[in-house]
């Protein structure tokens, strides 16, 4: 039998299809159990990412989804694009996520997320360092849970230091400068960092903030206005300027930490500040030419001792989430002890749970964990505020000018303070 398609049959067919499409979903769709759909906004690995986005705890994740009747979708972006994507989505009122990754942006985006952390189980909260909540707390309310202990520490090439006659990593600023100088020869440099991007945690300004605390300074006074235009601020920048002749000259053009990491792992630089993830990369022969020679230590002390900054990688839940309880349960899964353990063993990102950090297997696989815990005994304020990006661009740009010799350290710090004062006053006005 043959059928012939006429305009009439075509019209009838499309009308019928339209009528079916307009029926309610329960009349047309297959019968499913009630499943909760969760959407998670996360960084792309190798930056810290959850199970299912990074390759760890995949079986446990599948079991959790089955047990909870939940579907989890990930939207992942390269780390440098996260803030702007999120801020745009929140500003336009079209943020589609239940859970979002935050990195120092909680004060800025606080009005779009809920203070869920107080509802986390007590056993879990007790197993987290209380200081880890400082960067996710606004007006006394806890808006997030940090999921990785991520402080800057010193990473160095043991073989290069040995050859230069240094049996131990530098303990203070003078040793740091002397060591960097001795390591600089034959195309190799004593130090490398990514000074190309002024903004954000892990940007140029945040490195200066690390030295600022080592010098005994702080960013803001009690009134919220900047107070870094003093000896500590200038000394911190002067140290960075003094290190420049022994710093890989490409540093000023490296916009991301991975560019600088690659230089150290290629054996072309002796030391750098970096996040704990570097340990895994440095131990992988596919990524590193210095396997077995990478070592870690707490950051050299300034006049006030050692200090660092906090990576502040945290999970938060959006106000627009239709399933905030289920979203909180997913965060609890991310912070489960076994998942935290696989996180460090498989990806190199340290756990935040104290019990997991104390696990012998974890300490054997990630010997830098002990260093990070030691670093955590010293100050590690990231100075996050509602205008953190604008502040760090202003400070980081002035730091870059000093590093390039366009300004003295004192002039750059004075100009930076003026700009930050204007930014803070504008926000408060």
């Amino acid at each position, binding site marked *: 039998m043959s059928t012939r398609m006429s305009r009439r049959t075509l019209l009838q067919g499309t009308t019928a299809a339209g009528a079916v499409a307009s029926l309610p979903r329960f009349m047309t769709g297959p019968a499913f159990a009630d499943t909760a759909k969760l959407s998670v906004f996360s960084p792309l690995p190798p930056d810290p990412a959850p199970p299912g986005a990074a390759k760890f705890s995949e079986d446990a994740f599948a079991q959790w989804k089955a047990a909870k009747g939940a579907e989890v979708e990930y939207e992942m972006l390269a780390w440098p694009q996260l*803030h*702007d994507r999120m*801020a*745009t989505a*929140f*500003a336009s*009122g079209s943020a589609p996520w239940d859970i979002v990754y935050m990195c120092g942006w909680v004060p*800025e*985006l606080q*009005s*779009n997320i809920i203070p869920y952390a107080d509802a986390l189980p007590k056993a879990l909260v007790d197993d987290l360092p209380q200081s880890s909540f400082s960067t996710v707390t606004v007006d006394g309310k806890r808006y997030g849970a940090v999921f990785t202990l991520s402080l800057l520490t010193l990473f160095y090439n043991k073989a290069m230091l040995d050859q230069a006659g240094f049996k131990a990593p530098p303990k203070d600023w003078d040793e740091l400068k002397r060591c960097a100088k001795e390591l600089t020869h034959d*195309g190799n440099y004593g130090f490398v960092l990514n*000074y*190309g*991007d*002024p*903004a954000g945690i892990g940007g140029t300004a945040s490195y200066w903030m690390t030295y600022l605390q080592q010098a005994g300074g702080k960013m803001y006074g009690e009134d919220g206005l900047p107070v870094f235009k003093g000896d500590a601020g200038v000394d911190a920048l002067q140290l960075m300027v003094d290190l420049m002749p022994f710093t*890989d*000259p*490409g540093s*000023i*053009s*490296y*916009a991301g930490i991975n*560019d600088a990491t*690659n*230089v150290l792992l*290629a054996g*072309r630089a002796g030391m750098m500040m970096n996040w704990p993830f570097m340990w895994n990369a440095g131990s992988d022969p596919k990524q590193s030419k210095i396997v077995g020679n990478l070592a870690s230590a707490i950051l050299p002390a300034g006049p006030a001792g050692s200090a660092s900054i906090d990576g502040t990688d945290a999970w938060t839940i959006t*106000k627009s989430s239709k399933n905030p309880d289920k979203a909180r349960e997913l965060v609890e899964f991310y912070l489960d002890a076994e998942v935290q353990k696989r996180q460090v063993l498989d990806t190199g990102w340290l756990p935040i749970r104290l019990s997991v950090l104390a696990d012998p297997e974890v300490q054997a696989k990630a010997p830098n964990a002990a260093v990070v815990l030691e670093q955590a005994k010293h100050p590690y304020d990231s100075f996050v505020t509602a*205008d953190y*990006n*604008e502040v760090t*661009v202003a400070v980081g*740009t*002035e730091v*870059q*000018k000093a590093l*390039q010799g*366009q300004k003295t350290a004192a002039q750059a710090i004075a100009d930076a303070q003026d700009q930050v004062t204007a930014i803070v006053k504008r926000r408060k006005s």
Partner: protein
Amino acid sequence: MTVTAATFEQRRRRVGLLFVLPALLVLAAVLGYPIVDSIMLALQRVTLTGGAIQQSWVGFDNFQRLFADATFQRAALNTAYFSAMEVVLVVLISLGVAVLLNHPMGRFGVFRILLIVPWAIAPVANAVLWKWILHANYGVLNGILKGLGLIDHYHVWLGTPVSALNFLLLVDVWKSVPFVALLILAGLQRVPSILYRAAYMDGAGPVQSFLHVTLPTIRSVIAIAVVLQTIWSLRVFDIVFVLTRGGPADATALLNFLAYRVTFNFLDLGYGSAIANVIFAITMLLAILYVWLLWPRPAGAKR
């Protein structure tokens, strides 16, 4: 009073307008609304609080802020230099390429296909490609120059303000030349060959033919290329974002990048809109010039 029936021409125009109306409505929604909204935003202080956008009218405060903002002034100067140099370089190189392609030996299709490659590459892919070419440690450019013995150590091409801005310029010129070259080539192919024969009969050499026949004939095409390239150079964003993030020390911050940074990174939507409106005003003026150049004129009339 007598009511006269509409003429055929009046009815034809009325129906024509009716047919064009949906397109006009779409244009108003897609183009007109964002433009008007952007201008309104520029007159407000906009903050993201309480889960919603808080707006308050501030008149021309955001525009006044531009005059006191050293970063804006730096970006405006960078953009002026970038645009001027880009237009000069792109048009000159494209003219040379077009003349070569118009030569009998250059008329193989493969040359035109090769020419179009840089233009066809996606903007971000193009920027990432150049990131690796210019990388201070692993860059192809350093490798080639050192291999040829032209440099004795690797250079940080994006490391100093002057070098970084000029390398961004180079990257954008590389990407822009193909389209403008094809535009000028189309103009060259419209030059009547009889003019060249007449010039030859008058004793003109190749250079004189080019100066007195070719250039005057394609003058309007070059003018269009200049205007279009100026507009495009004001819109440069991707190469700045991928290669330098505006650094070092704002040396490569162009106006379009600054508008993005202020709006989406600082979430200062009002001030960001003011910067964007400055770019829009300049672009609008150039677009009007472009339309004026293309407007049909009676034969023999001068532009």
